[in-house]
């Protein structure tokens, strides 16, 4: 295996509505910021990979337009995943393992403001059994939260605690969309949105983009003072049918934890991709994270959720913590689907003495 590290990360401010800025303009900011951070040009990049969802723009092959944000002449080696950009990072990591690239650029983008995000995400569900009924993402997540409450795994109060910590941590994240100090009482006095979820239990609707640069060990150490090495990485998918599985557990997370030998690491911090407050509690349980692990220092996705880039942002947020020396060994998690159907786990480490 080749040693691969994250060497640069950039993210736009997470906003409810980016207004007239189009996707290309959002991507261009972060691609240039990431390249400038390590003093590289697009010609130094061996492989470029993006993650996005064409349904958000409502046009097939809309992602191709995103390439206007990078210089694609002379022709570049490029790919795209119709998934969160965390999976574009996985593809790039594979390209580097295959020795087809030494340096890779990964970007993700999502402009969710123009449509009704809850309904648009329904189009990603099974087209025969589920999508024709139009179950929306908030309702499906609410079903999972309700099942966890019925099983006495969580309470509305424990969900509010997740929101309180997210907004508090987000105060030190300049890009966050939602931050501040809230009391549990204030949060619980908010009206129910889709029972048992209140609006603050759901990640906000966000416009934005982000980019990461990956490099082999040799390049990483010459370009970045404290790169975050990807020590272990794994991703798994569960059944697409919500009724086939127990929504209060995650077999894919359990399996991935085993594959990456999670219990062998002393994890300082975790960045968890939990678009709904109860999912953070489910992830902590399935990952068996103890109270010493600092969770979502960035505020997590409840403080800002760039659709199709929020998973990559977890990896980027962990890179920021490692690069600044605040964390030595961290866990980043990315997900896809309203009930955590698909998951990726990454162990990231500093190699500085």
């Amino acid at each position, binding site marked *: 295996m080749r040693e691969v590290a994250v060497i640069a990360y950039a993210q736009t401010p997470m906003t409810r509505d980016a207004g007239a800025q189009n996707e290309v303009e959002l991507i261009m900011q972060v691609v240039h910021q990431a390249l400038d951070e390590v003093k590289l040009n697009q010609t130094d990049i061996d492989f470029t990979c993006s993650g996005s969802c064409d349904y958000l723009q409502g046009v097939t092959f809309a992602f191709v337009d995103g390439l206007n944000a990078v210089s694609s002449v002379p022709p570049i080696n490029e790919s795209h995943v119709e998934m969160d950009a965390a999976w574009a990072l996985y593809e790039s990591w594979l390209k580097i393992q295959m020795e087809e690239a030494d340096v890779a650029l990964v970007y993700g983008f999502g402009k969710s403001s123009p449509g*009704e995000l*809850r*309904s648009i995400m*329904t189009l990603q569900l099974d087209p*025969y*059994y*589920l999508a*024709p*009924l*139009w*179950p*929306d993402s908030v*309702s*499906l997540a*609410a*079903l999972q939260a*309700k*099942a966890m409450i*019925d099983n006495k795994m969580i309470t509305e109060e424990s969900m509010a605690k997740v929101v309180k910590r997210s907004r508090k941590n987000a105060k030190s994240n300049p890009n966050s969309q939602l931050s501040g100090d809230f009391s549990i009482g204030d949060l619980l006095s908010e009206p*129910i949105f*889709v*029972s*048992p979820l209140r609006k603050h239990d759901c990640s906000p609707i966000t416009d934005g983009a982000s980019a990461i640069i990956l490099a082999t060990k040799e390049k990483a150490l010459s370009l970045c003072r404290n790169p975050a090495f990807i020590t272990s990485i794994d991703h798994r998918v*569960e*059944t697409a*049918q*919500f*009724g*086939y*599985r127990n*929504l209060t557990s995650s077999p894919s997370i359990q399996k991935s934890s085993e594959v990456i030998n999670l219990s062998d690491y002393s994890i300082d911090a975790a960045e968890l991709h939990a678009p709904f407050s109860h999912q953070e509690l489910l992830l902590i349980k399935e990952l068996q994270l103890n109270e010493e692990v600092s969770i979502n220092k960035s505020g997590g996705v409840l403080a800002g959720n760039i659709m199709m880039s929020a998973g990559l942002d977890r990896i980027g947020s962990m890179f920021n913590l490692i690069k600044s020396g605040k964390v030595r060994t961290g866990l980043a998690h990315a997900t896809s689907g309203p009930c955590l159907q698909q998951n990726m786990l990454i162990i990231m480490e500093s190699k500085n003495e």
Partner: protein
Amino acid sequence: MSDKEILKADFELGFTYTRSTGPVIGHFLTELQKCKIYGIKGSDGKVIVPPAEYDPVTGETLKEFIEVSDIGKVKTWVWVNQPLEKHPIQAPFAWALIQLEGADTNFLHAVKVKKEKIMKNNMKVKASWALPPKGNITDIKYFEPI
């Protein structure tokens, strides 16, 4: 230019091909046209409804269809106070995971009741059919308590 001079034509955005749903999903949808619900036997012998082409755990190809009831029990539910435009019921309703009699897995569908208070775990519900059925999951309009 007056309105009369402007040429107009209907335009429907759509795909100019049809796609087969295959022997498993196709069987389920065909039986829905007879107001019957079929599941399939999984690797562990449990009945999966709606039928899966491959076992969700072992990945084994599944073939043995089993008819199940259109009556079942609500296992988990959530209340939607403000239905979205595309939702199957345009009044407050519940989404529910329903275990049909004869099935070992849950089936996601809408439950029509007037008030949230009526909804309970393990309550009995029955499918209400859209007639004539067309071979689509929406042939079941929703479930209602019995």
